[in-house]
């Protein structure tokens, strides 16, 4: 076991906001709180890309309050010719770990070399980590294994796949890989080719938004609406969902339900021309065409685009239900957040969602995401049994048990177990 003290760095090599940033911050908090409980002196650095337009000091105040050092850095690509000289000479590098270039995270101080171990969030490593640095990677999902369309299926998009291969190579160089679902763990092993002894499933926490301080004030005057939490990428399965909704509205014209879509870049699905360069991309165009061809949906679907956390929570509290329709991913916090406020969910059925449901004792109405008629059928079940479904939601007391502060001990134990087991 780790004795005395340990220095860790949690590094976000890409510009992230939203869920990934919150998730990374939660991991940092869990490690810090967990180490305190375990009586280990942890010096934790949180590294993020230097970008004053995206990040502000206030974004990281909560980390600083816990004694975590926040270190902005500039990413640099370094030639292996420079760095390999040292470690070849000292005979400390194995051939298998070498590459032409490496990434260095220049914080202007120590480039995180003062830390014993790095944790990288997530696996989008365009260049490998220098071979003398031990590190772990947090992998969320390999959506492209199941939905290859997101990387493109034409010769033009082969570059995306090559890029993915670079990510996978970098991931394989890690001391160990951290996942939060069994499904992603299996994907790491069987898709990315990571040694199975080095892939660990860590506990899944829930505290993605500051919901505990949010009072539940419902507005009964608003019409019943489904809050469709999504984003603009293809694995979110918009076309099937729109077709399913159209089926439902046609079969049940008396239904008062409307649908509000929210999420990053979802404004690309509106018919209003947008200056964003993605507007002309094939997929948003197809979604817009599908909406245009579905008169009922056109009438009852409103697209809000990305909402601030505050407004999102207001919309969530008053929703009739949450609609989650992805084909595949690592699960979603939105159905758990809904449960916190007593809002039930209707969700597509795939392994990570089933795991999430088990973890958080949720019982959403599930549907086959590739079959629009099944969505329509399930939605009718959802509407007919709405009050029973609400009654089956877990209590807040039960959900609190899964928040980051409560999960910190377990998270730290998992980390130390993996760290010790994979030390060279």
């Amino acid at each position, binding site marked *: 076991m780790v004795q005395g003290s340990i220095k860790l760095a949690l590094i976000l090599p890409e510009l992230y906001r939203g869920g990934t940033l919150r998730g990374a911050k939660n991991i940092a908090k869990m490690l810090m709180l967990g180490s305190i409980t375990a009586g280990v002196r942890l010096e934790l*650095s949180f590294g993020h890309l230097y970008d004053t337009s995206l990040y502000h000091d206030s974004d990281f105040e909560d980390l600083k309050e816990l004694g975590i050092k926040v270190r902005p850095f500039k990413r640099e690509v370094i*030639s292996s*010719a420079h760095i390999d*000289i040292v470690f070849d000479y000292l005979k400390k590098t194995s051939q298998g770990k070498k590459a032409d270039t490496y990434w260095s995270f220049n914080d*202007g101080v120590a*480039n995180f070399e*003062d830390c014993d171990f790095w944790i990288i969030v997530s696996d989008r490593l365009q260049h490998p980590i*220098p071979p003398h640095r031990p590190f772990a990677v947090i992998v969320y999902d390999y959506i492209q294994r199941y939905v290859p369309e997101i990387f493109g299926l034409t010769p033009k998009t082969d*570059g995306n796949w090559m890029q993915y291969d670079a990510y996978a190579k970098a991931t394989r160089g890690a001391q160990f890989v951290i996942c939060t679902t069994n499904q992603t763990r299996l994907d790491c092993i069987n898709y990315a080719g990571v040694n199975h002894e080095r892939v660990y499933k860590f506990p899944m926490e829930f505290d993605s938004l500051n919901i505990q301080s949010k009072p539940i004030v419902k507005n009964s005057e608003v019409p019943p609406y489904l809050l469709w939490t999504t984003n603009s990428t293809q694995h979110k399965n918009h076309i099937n969902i729109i077709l399913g909704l159209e089926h439902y509205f046609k079969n049940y014209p008396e239904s008062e339900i409307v649908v509000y879509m929210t999420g990053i870049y979802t404004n690309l699905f509106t018919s209003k021309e947008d200056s964003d360069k993605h507007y002309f991309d094939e997929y948003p165009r197809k979604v817009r065409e599908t909406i245009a061809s579905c008169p009922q949906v056109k009438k009852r679907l409103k697209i809000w685009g990305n909402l601030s956390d505050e407004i999102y929570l207001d919309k969530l509290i008053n929703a009739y239900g949450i609609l989650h329709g992805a084909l595949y991913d690592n699960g979603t916090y939105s159905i758990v957040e809904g449960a916190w406020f007593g809002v039930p969910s209707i969700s597509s059925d795939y392994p990570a969602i089933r795991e999430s449901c088990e973890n958080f004792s949720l019982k959403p109405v599930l549907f086959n995401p590739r079959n629009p008629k099944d969505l329509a059928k399930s939605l009718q079940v959802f509407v007919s049994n709405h009050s029973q479904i609400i009654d089956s939601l877990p209590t807040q007391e039960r959900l609190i048990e899964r928040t980051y502060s409560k999960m910190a001990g377990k998270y730290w134990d998992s980390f130390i177990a993996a760290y010790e087991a994979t030390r060279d």
Partner: protein
Amino acid sequence: MRQHEIKTMTNKLPVFFEIVFLGLNPIEHKSEGLIVLLSDTINALQKQGVLVRIHTTGRHIKSIKRVLGGNNVDIQKVSFLVYKVEAITLVLIHFLLHRGRSKVYEQKSGILKNIKNKLSDTLRIVIPRIFTWSLDLSPLNIWFKVPLNLGLILGLTILICILFLATLILLFPILIIKIGLRLINKLQGFVFAKRKNIPRHLLGVLKKTYNAKNRLVQFLQWQIYTKEQIRFAKKINANKDIKKLFFFTAFDGFVVSHFKGSSLVTLPDFITLVYPLRFIAAHNKDTLEGMRLSIKNAKAVICYSEFVKMEQLYKFFPKEVENQRVEVIPQGYFPTLETSNHKKEEAGKKLNEKRSYIINPFTSLLLNPPVVDFTQFNFLLYPTIDRPHKNTLNLVKAFTKLLREYNFNIKLVLTTPHPSRDVEQFILEQRLQYDVIFMPSVDLETLDLLCEKSSLVVHPSLAEGGDVFNFSRAASTKTPALLADVQVVREMFEREGLSKDDYDDWVFDPIDVDSLFEKIKKTLLNPEKIIENQYAYSKKLSIYSFDDMARRYLKLYESI
């Protein structure tokens, strides 16, 4: 060895403390820590009646005299043996490249800049003179000046036309290449399955070629330097009287391995191996081989601290050091001085006379170096030559907070000749060019004045080979000092009996800007207690002086 014994020996025959002073490039800055320490060692040895002789080459001698002289070494009392073995090629390469230790500090040669300046000075004077002369018409000269002026106008017109045409001719191929590349770029979308950007690839190739050229030059430099070292060792071997040599760095391993006598080698630190990602361009096999040979072939090795011995030497060169005699000899301390508030005010006035040391590293924002009056502001001082492990950026960040968020009337004075790239970018971004003052290569008198006048000396460096000079330099003049809480600093304090509680207020976490800021703020607002404690401790430290350190060197030197 006791002083009277040395004197006895020197009476019999001149026994020298033989120092080797080489290096890939001649030392540029007299304020390099190693040079300061070497100078103090030489002075202390001479005080004890020991004769010091420096062995070097023709390409190093000038800079050696300059940097030692700049550190108060009486050059007249030092013997020099200059061997004509220098590699002329290295002189040329150094002259052309003028490279620093790391890419971050790489500087271009000043030759082109000088030529450009001289040319523009000449033109600035000559052109107006010709112009006024030709316009100065009178009945006496009109008969020849008018045709001459017409001829000049015609000549200039023709010249401009020729230049215009020449530019067009030169630009044309570039234009064609650019259009061609653009066409290729367009075509590749249809022809190639992969959307690769050919111009970008071409740029990549060019960049690689440039890097390869740099590395090739570096490789050649070191290969030539190796040959120079071997020639140098052979020359020394020819003198049978020279049986021992002292090396103040570990880079001259080929001399150590080829010298037939006994070598005493100092290993300051292995910082480039501790932070390899901070010293990307500094790595090369020959430097490492030089260090390895030094450790392996020396009769004894000196480290300045247990930290370097245990955490660096044994870690990076375990085999070479296995049966080696390694001695830790800490650096000496400065004697405490009697000082007062009046003296500090006087120091400010004296510093105003030293303002010519201030340089302007930000020529895009400042026409001239900032104008300052040292009696009118407080300042933080970091005497160092900025290197990637010196952590200057965090100090500048903490200083910025002090200035901008808390509106202290304060500046930051750095004695580095140039900011590192990170620091430079930060200063430019934050427009701190008037408040971060650069005073490089100051003489010892000015450095003492800076220490005395400054409100606080801060040393945020992540690592040092030995004790931090800046601490005793500051504390001895009743200026508070804050140091990074790193192992070598803890060793310095704890060696002399302090506990963590005693020095906790004097150290800060070097990674954490907030910790540094808080400590600076706290010390600036309430300096009295720290000054009192540090001065008392400094008095205690000064019992072990540079003379004592030199005595230990000498004892070890005699024993090998």
